[in-house]
């Protein structure tokens, strides 16, 4: 008998419905074959389904079974077809009845007949909603991802035998109720470093605050041991939680890559990712014959920290240019073209020269001018032009270090205080860009600058002078306005208007001083 079970395949961030057709023949040489461009992990589904059925107390039929994954021209991968195949076989054997309403079956089977956490359930729920499919049978560990979407019935299935009982009307599976996105105050998460632990570097901390508030890219330069890495890692603690739309975007990507831990649903904590300089270009940007998101997409709406920036291969760094500008990356392969969002805030850290002490007041730099040139030439003009804030992180004075930790407490702001400022600034921005799908000042396009930024005459004059004096590019000009806007948003008087002192501060982070 022929049965059809609905499931879905993923390509990029889109889920396409797949019909799993199962025919159990009455005649013919017994065997089990799967067709419809399956890859190795689906080929192995045969053994999983067979064993899971036997361990659920069902005799596997000694008959010819053919499974077709339609449409047959889309390559399919992953272990998610285990459950639909098993249900198809059971329906064909007339051991279960499929629900009358259209339903998605999705999930990987364990050999004992249980269902395992499977990636992509959130995307499946989105597809179900847009296609008008009512019921979703997904593994219990992944069901919370689906319950984020309203208007669909999500059944968390823990084992095959439980599902058989439910479909036959013998036992009950409780539908998950729709969970709502929590408010912005998910509390302060524990991070490695607190800003109050970092001694000195007040100007760097201020720049970091501006960067975090407006989502601006920041570049730190300084000798080894000055605290660049510490500053970057402490930034994870001053980032506000994701708002609802941001949260949905991030959850999409994390669901696709299987980065959502079992039992969890929406991702509300802002991503903070680091990539080592040996990361491949594809690992950073995304790609593969079946395109997968890279680190820049995994840090969408969050922070990507690249330490030892000039050590990255040139080609890798230059590949960052387009995503940094557009906030998304299009990956084209033979299988098709996929666009992943990649609107991230870049934190880059570097030494000024190979030995690290160029411009240090106490230690001598041992590099030859040629070495320094070669080192700095790794960071191309177009790339650096896309970074809004350039700061120097000088070595900390030993006197200050020893000066006693007690004295510092209360004087310097801790991460929580800074975070509150950042959250307020971000709230202002969220209000400003309501309904525009942009969340930060850094994401503004030029047309938005004209619409939202209110620059007074003196500020404009100052900007004009700076552009003329330093020969700044048009992009730099617009980026300066964006940073000025963030500084205005951060200011205690919350002036929406960009004033000369805001522009002056923004300019200070812009002019690169070497040596």
């Amino acid at each position, binding site marked *: 008998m022929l049965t059809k079970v609905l499931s879905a395949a993923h390509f990029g961030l889109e889920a396409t419905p797949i019909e799993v057709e199962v025919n159990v023949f009455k005649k013919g*040489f017994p065997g089990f074959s799967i067709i419809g461009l399956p890859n190795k992990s689906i080929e192995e589904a045969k053994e999983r389904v067979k064993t899971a059925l036997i361990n659920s107390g069902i005799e596997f039929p000694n008959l010819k079974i053919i499974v077709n994954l339609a449409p047959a021209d889309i390559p399919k991968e992953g272990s998610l077809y285990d459950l639909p195949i098993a249900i198809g076989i059971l329906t064909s054997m007339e051991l279960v009845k499929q629900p009358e309403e259209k339903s998605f079956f999705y999930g990987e089977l364990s050999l004992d007949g249980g269902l395992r956490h499977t990636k992509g359930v959130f995307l499946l729920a989105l597809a179900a909603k847009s296609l008008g499919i009512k019921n979703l049978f997904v593994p219990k560990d992944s069901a919370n991802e689906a319950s984020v979407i309203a208007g669909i019935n999500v059944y968390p299935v823990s084992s095959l035998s439980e599902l058989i009982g439910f479909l036959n009307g013998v036992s009950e599976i409780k539908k998950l109720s729709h969970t709502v996105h929590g408010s912005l105050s998910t509390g302060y998460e524990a991070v490695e470093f607190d800003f109050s632990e970092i001694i000195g570097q007040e100007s760097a901390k201020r720049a970091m605050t501006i960067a975090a508030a407006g989502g601006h890219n920041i570049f730190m330069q300084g000798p080894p041991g000055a605290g660049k890495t510490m500053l970057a890692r402490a930034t994870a603690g001053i980032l506000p939680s994701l708002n609802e739309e941001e949260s949905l975007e991030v959850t999409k990507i994390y669901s696709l890559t299987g980065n959502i831990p079992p039992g969890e649903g929406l991702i509300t904590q802002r991503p903070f990712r680091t990539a080592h300089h040996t990361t491949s270009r594809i690992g950073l940007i995304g790609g593969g014959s079946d395109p997968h998101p890279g680190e820049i997409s995994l840090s969408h709406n969050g922070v990507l920290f690249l330490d030892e920036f000039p050590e990255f291969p040139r080609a890798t760094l230059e590949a960052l240019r387009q995503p940094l500008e557009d906030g998304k990356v299009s990956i084209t392969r033979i299988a098709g073209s996929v666009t992943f969002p990649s609107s991230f805030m870049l934190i880059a850290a570097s030494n000024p020269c190979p030995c690290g002490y160029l411009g240090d007041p106490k230690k001598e730099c041992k590099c030859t001018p040629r070495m320094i040139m070669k080192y700095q030439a790794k960071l191309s003009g177009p790339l650096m032009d896309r970074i809004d804030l350039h700061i120097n992180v000088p070595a900390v004075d030993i006197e200050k270090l020893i000066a006693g930790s007690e004295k510092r407490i209360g004087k310097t702001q801790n991460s929580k205080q800074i975070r509150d400022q950042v959250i307020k600034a971000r709230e202002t921005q969220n209000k400003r860009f309501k309904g525009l799908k942009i969340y930060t000042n850094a994401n503004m396009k030029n047309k938005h600058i004209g619409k939202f930024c209110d620059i007074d005459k003196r500020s404009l004059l100052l900007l004009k002078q700076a552009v003329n004096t330093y020969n700044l590019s048009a992009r730099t000009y617009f980026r300066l306005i964006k940073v000025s806007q963030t500084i205005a948003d951060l200011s205690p008087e919350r002036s929406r208007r960009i004033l000369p002192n805001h522009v002056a501060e923004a300019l200070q982070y812009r002019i690169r001083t070497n040596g």
Partner: protein
Amino acid sequence: MAKKFNRKVGKEGEEIAAKFLSGKGYKILERNYYTRFGEIDLIVLKNNILTFVEVKLKHGEDFGTPEEMIGTSKLSQVQRMAEFYLMDKPKMAEIYKTYSLDAVCIMMGEDGEVGRISHYENLTF
């Protein structure tokens, strides 16, 4: 030791299968056609179609069904042997233009009697 036992089981299966197929109206041409490249368990004839039969016999289902033991590699081996047989006997090849590959699977019961016998015709792989 194990090899000897295998051959005994093979012989037993062939006899049961031959008897079963004669009952169905097949004419037995060869039993255990053997060359140094391999063997064919049974070569039979019915309705003018030459049929090469692979016989599988199993005692008890603990290690799976006999059907599971016949995979694509086994079938291609039988086909290769069938081609070899026709090369060996050009006259047969002239008379019978097509041939079919069949399998007979026998499950033995615990009492030493035949529990189940299934004949699968015209296999493809």
